[in-house]
């Protein structure tokens, strides 16, 4: 049954689309071929005054050339004339008035200085941005999991499967490329997984054509064949083919699994609730972004001007366009949830969610350009002014940071779901609500842990690229001024893996027959503590490469024990942490599948463990951001633009720890308010038993 739509709504959408079209056309003009009398040039909303100025300048240039020819005949005459008249004073063209002599001074307020204000605003902005980029990724997958499999939804699932397969394929591919050394691993992973998913989803569209095994096989075979055709290599290597087979099979598996998953309304409700929070966080992202820019203009005016001017197309065209488009799509996504459900157009809503994600990811990729340009500006540096804007964006660390942030944002989103679940569990009185939010916490932890597993590999890839660009930065991070910062990172990662496992333990206690796994899990905990100890073990206990005055030079491991501090030991420890967590995760999954889960009866410790976990994750994320920023040493843009302000030195570990804690506290206070306003407050207005989720889809 189709619901009729009001003519008012139709005309509103048409007007909106027209406006968008005009706007886009105006912004497209810089990409169009230059023509003096182009129709499009009048649509670019450029000031006519500038256009006239240009023409005048051209004419002046011509006149000057002619003058030059003439003056060569009578040089003496012209010199005499010049001498009489003197040089023409053109300073009025650049004179900005009495403000020209103004000097910017270091600003200080309640212990906060230029740098700390910038640091604060930047990290707060990036935390909100991570939320609005990380959460929509699995919100759309959850929406799919919660949607009834109507024909429209099944069509949309083909697209969402491909989207998910691209993300998974890229992550597996890059891990294979860097850790195992598969040539063009990313491309093999991406194509095989995406095309495997596409073929299996399409074949399964009309009815269940293949079971899960056949789907994996078909995904693997077709994905591999197509990825081999699409990946530009001279010789096929076995490792590449194996990678393609694995990722193709994964693509086939997830496609089949998602396409025929039994729709669960809990997922729909969760996706809808998180979307409401995303809407508010979006405003905070814009707010903190503006704040960051204002602070930069006060604190680092010269630098921010240079940076923005280095990316004219990005900052004047691409970024605003993407941002506005994302804003439009995001609000459409949030506010069309109920109307599209009512009119049985769930599939369209899912597609809109994917478009939102694509725009969000594009924004992430775009802004990673200037971020990484500051870290690894393309060499040779004396040519930095002559290279194209695209070359500045596609610098050495760009793609590694994209991968790292993609996975990092996913983990962040997972743990934010944990926090939402935990808060709402604590704020709920009703049994059904508690059961539901207990389940939300379980799902959040599942997502967080699953995405956290490849995260160390992404970090490794990023730092490896930095080492290749300039080993000095790598050494500064790993064995010099930031070595103690990295030690704290090790402690944080160990804490997160441990706490995640403690949560699994606590929540398994509410599953019947789960105790059969407990002895093995306890053994896993012993391994976790051993691995965390090795990860934490440093080569030396002083904060610099060589002991400085007042440091104890004996705080160094002897040579025969130094291996404990080397990458081989750290990698083994990381491998152990990941493996034990993965094994516990399997135990947890088997327990939930084979025993009855008493949702709502979790040990009250559970929600606090989740909140601790979320806090540790966000603290770690801010900490790693700090490490990345400080690794440029006293450069805004490494070896291109020097920081000459009084705060150019690296802050101490203690000062950084305190600053990051303040930032994370601020974020959590804001998030608590946002969760309350977005989810809890509307419930207090209505009957609490009635879920605030979207109106269920109507029957077809």
């Amino acid at each position: 049954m189709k619901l009729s739509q009001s003519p008012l709504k139709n005309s509103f959408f048409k007007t909106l689309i027209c406006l968008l079209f005009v706007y886009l056309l105006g912004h497209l003009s810089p990409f169009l071929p230059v023509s003096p009398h182009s129709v499009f040039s009048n649509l670019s909303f450029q000031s006519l005054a500038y256009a006239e100025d240009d023409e005048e300048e051209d004419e002046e240039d011509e006149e000057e050339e002619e003058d030059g020819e003439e003056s060569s005949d009578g040089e003496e005459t012209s010199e005499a004339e010049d001498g009489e008249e003197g040089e023409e004073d053109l300073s009025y063209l650049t004179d900005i008035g009495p403000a020209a002599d103004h000097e910017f001074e270091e600003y200080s307020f309640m212990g906060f200085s230029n740098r700390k204000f910038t640091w604060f605003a930047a990290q707060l902005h990036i935390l909100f941005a991570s939320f609005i980029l990380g959460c929509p990724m699995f919100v759309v997958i959850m929406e799919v999991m919660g949607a009834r499999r109507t024909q429209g939804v099944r069509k949309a699932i083909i697209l969402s499967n491909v989207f998910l397969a691209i993300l998974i394929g890229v992550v597996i591919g890059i891990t294979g490329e860097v850790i195992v050394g598969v040539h063009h691993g990313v491309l093999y992973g991406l194509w095989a997984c995406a095309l495997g998913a596409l073929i299996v989803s399409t074949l399964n569209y009309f009815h269940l054509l293949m079971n899960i095994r056949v789907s994996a096989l078909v995904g693997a075979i077709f994905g591999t064949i197509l990825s081999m055709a699409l990946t530009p290599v001279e010789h096929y290597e076995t490792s590449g083919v194996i990678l393609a087979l694995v990722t193709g099979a994964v693509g086939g598996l997830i496609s089949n699994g998602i396409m025929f998953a039994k729709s669960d309304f809990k997922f729909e409700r969760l996706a809808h609730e998180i979307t409401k929070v995303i809407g508010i966080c979006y405003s905070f992202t814009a707010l903190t972004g503006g704040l960051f820019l204002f602070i930069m203009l006060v604190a680092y005016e010269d630098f921010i001007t240079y940076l923005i001017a280095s990316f004219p197309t990005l900052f004047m065209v691409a970024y605003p366009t993407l941002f506005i488009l994302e804003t439009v799509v995001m609000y459409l996504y949030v506010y069309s949830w109920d109307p599209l459900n009512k009119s049985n157009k769930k599939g369209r809503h899912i597609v809109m969610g994917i478009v939102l994600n694509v725009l969000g990811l594009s924004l992430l990729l775009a802004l990673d350009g200037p971020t990484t340009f500051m870290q690894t500006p393309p060499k040779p540096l004396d040519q930095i002014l002559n290279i194209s804007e695209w070359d500045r964006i596609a610098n050495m660390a760009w793609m590694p940071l994209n991968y790292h942030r993609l996975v990092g944002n996913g983990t962040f989103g997972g743990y934010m779901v944990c926090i939402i679940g935990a808060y709402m569990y604590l704020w709920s009185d009703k049994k059904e609500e508690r059961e539901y939010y207990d389940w939300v916490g379980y799902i959040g932890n599942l997502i967080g842990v699953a995405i956290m597993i490849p995260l160390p590999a992404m970090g490794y890839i990023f730092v490896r690229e930095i080492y290749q660009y300039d080993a000095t930065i790598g050494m500064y991070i790993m064995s010099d001024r930031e070595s103690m910062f990295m030690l704290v990172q090790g402690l944080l990662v160990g804490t997160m893996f441990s706490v995640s496992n403690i949560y699994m333990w606590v929540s398994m206690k509410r599953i019947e027959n789960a105790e059969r796994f407990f002895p093995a899990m306890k053994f896993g905990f012993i391994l976790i503590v051993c691995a965390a100890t090795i990860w934490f073990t440093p080569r030396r206990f002083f904060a610099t490469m060589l002991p400085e005055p007042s440091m104890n030079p004996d705080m160094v491991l002897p040579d025969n024990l130094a291996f404990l501090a080397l990458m081989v030991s750290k990698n083994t420890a990381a491998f152990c942490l990941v493996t034990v967590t993965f094994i516990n995760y399997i135990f947890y999954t088997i327990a939930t599948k084979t025993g009855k889960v008493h949702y709502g009866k979790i040990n009250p410790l559970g929600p606090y463990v989740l909140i601790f976990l979320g806090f540790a994750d966000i603290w770690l994320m801010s900490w790693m951001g700090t490490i990345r920023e400080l690794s440029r040493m006293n450069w805004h843009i490494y070896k291109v633009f020097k920081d000459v302000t009084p705060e150019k030195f690296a802050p101490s570990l203690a000062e950084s720890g305190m600053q990051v804690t303040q930032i994370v506290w601020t974020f959590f206070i804001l998030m608590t308010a946002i969760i309350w306003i977005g989810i809890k407050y509307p419930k207090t207005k209505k009957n609490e038993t009635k879920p605030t989720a979207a109106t269920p889809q109507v029957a077809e």
Partner: protein
Amino acid sequence: MKIDMIIIGLIAGLSGLYALHSSFGVAGVGAGLAVMAIYALLLKVKAKKPVERSLFHNIRFKLPIILVLAGIIWVMAGKFNFPVWWQIEFVSFAFVGFFFFTLLDLKTLKQEKSSWDWLIRLLATYALASSIFIVVTAQLPQFDPELELAKLNRPPLKLADAAGPEVIAAGREVFENNKCFNCHKVFWEGNSDRGPNLGTKQIGLYNNDYIKEQILDPRKKQSPGFDDPKSIKAMPTYYGDDLSEDELTALVAYLKTMRDPTHMPVEGKYGDQWTWWDDKEVLAEGQQVFEGVHPATEGLSCAVCHGKDGTPMMTGALDFRDENNKDTDKIEGDHSDKLLKDWPDDLWYRRVTRGVPNTPMAPWGMIFEHLYLWKAEAYARTFHDPLDKRTARRPVPPVPSKEEIESWTTKEMFLDPLL
């Protein structure tokens, strides 16, 4: 589906074992198999319903165990020569484990009765997390930001008015600032063996051009023992862009001080090192010097007196074929009772560089580069200790301590006044 799980598990297990084998060999595989066996065994154990204990009951059983365990860890770490700070670290982690296991067996928390209950618990959670991170970051070793700022504010290096020792000191700073210590030790200083120890290798024996080339184009000639693919790529190639002419000059001046008058240069990577006494290429070059055909030591021929085949051509010239020869007593106040076969390295060096008074054995160290003199000495030993008959390499000497290095200058063991 069970068979799928078995296949996936098998593939994952084998991959893990392969990874452990590539890093730790058979020991890694053994450890991996042991962990798997323990897991398999523990999954077979018929588990009882977990007993939840109050905090007191928990600690009553676990605390004595952990105290004993901590004691064992402390003693064992000491036995393995871990410095005390690492002993503290390991014991601290044992207590972290104690905390974990106490938490795992802890009684279920009481349900919150009012908003205050969860609010207090919530704030306690945030306070706990924050205090851990604040305390850890405050207690770990720190550097002094004032010192950092002072370093950054220092003007760029200009050698125009600098004298020898100042240039060397400036070179030391260039060495530190460019993180050379990250890969290179200088005798006892530094703590990485990624690259050669520039002190025991005695990089200062080489001429300026060679040292410059090694800095600017490090892949042109790899140091012996560092020719594996990983080491070849290890030394960055951008120092030519990063260092100013003055900085490079100062750095080379500092590297030129890396000499040891008491030992033969040492080559190779930590764990597989050797001295020039046993270096085939060095001996071949030393032979050229000894026989007077090396272009870098034109005018020097040891063979003129000591004989090309070791048979002395002049009365009184030392016969290198006789391993029981004694040291000369012609140098007043400087005599060793040791036989030629047991001569320490510094005696060889001293006799060749400073000569023997009132004999044709001139102080060759005043005329020729010491690099080649060491090589000639290494060759001279082969007359009584041929390379092909040696069953083992001569032991690599221990790295000289700070005090030893300082004594070389005070005892004026170098001929160069700057050393």
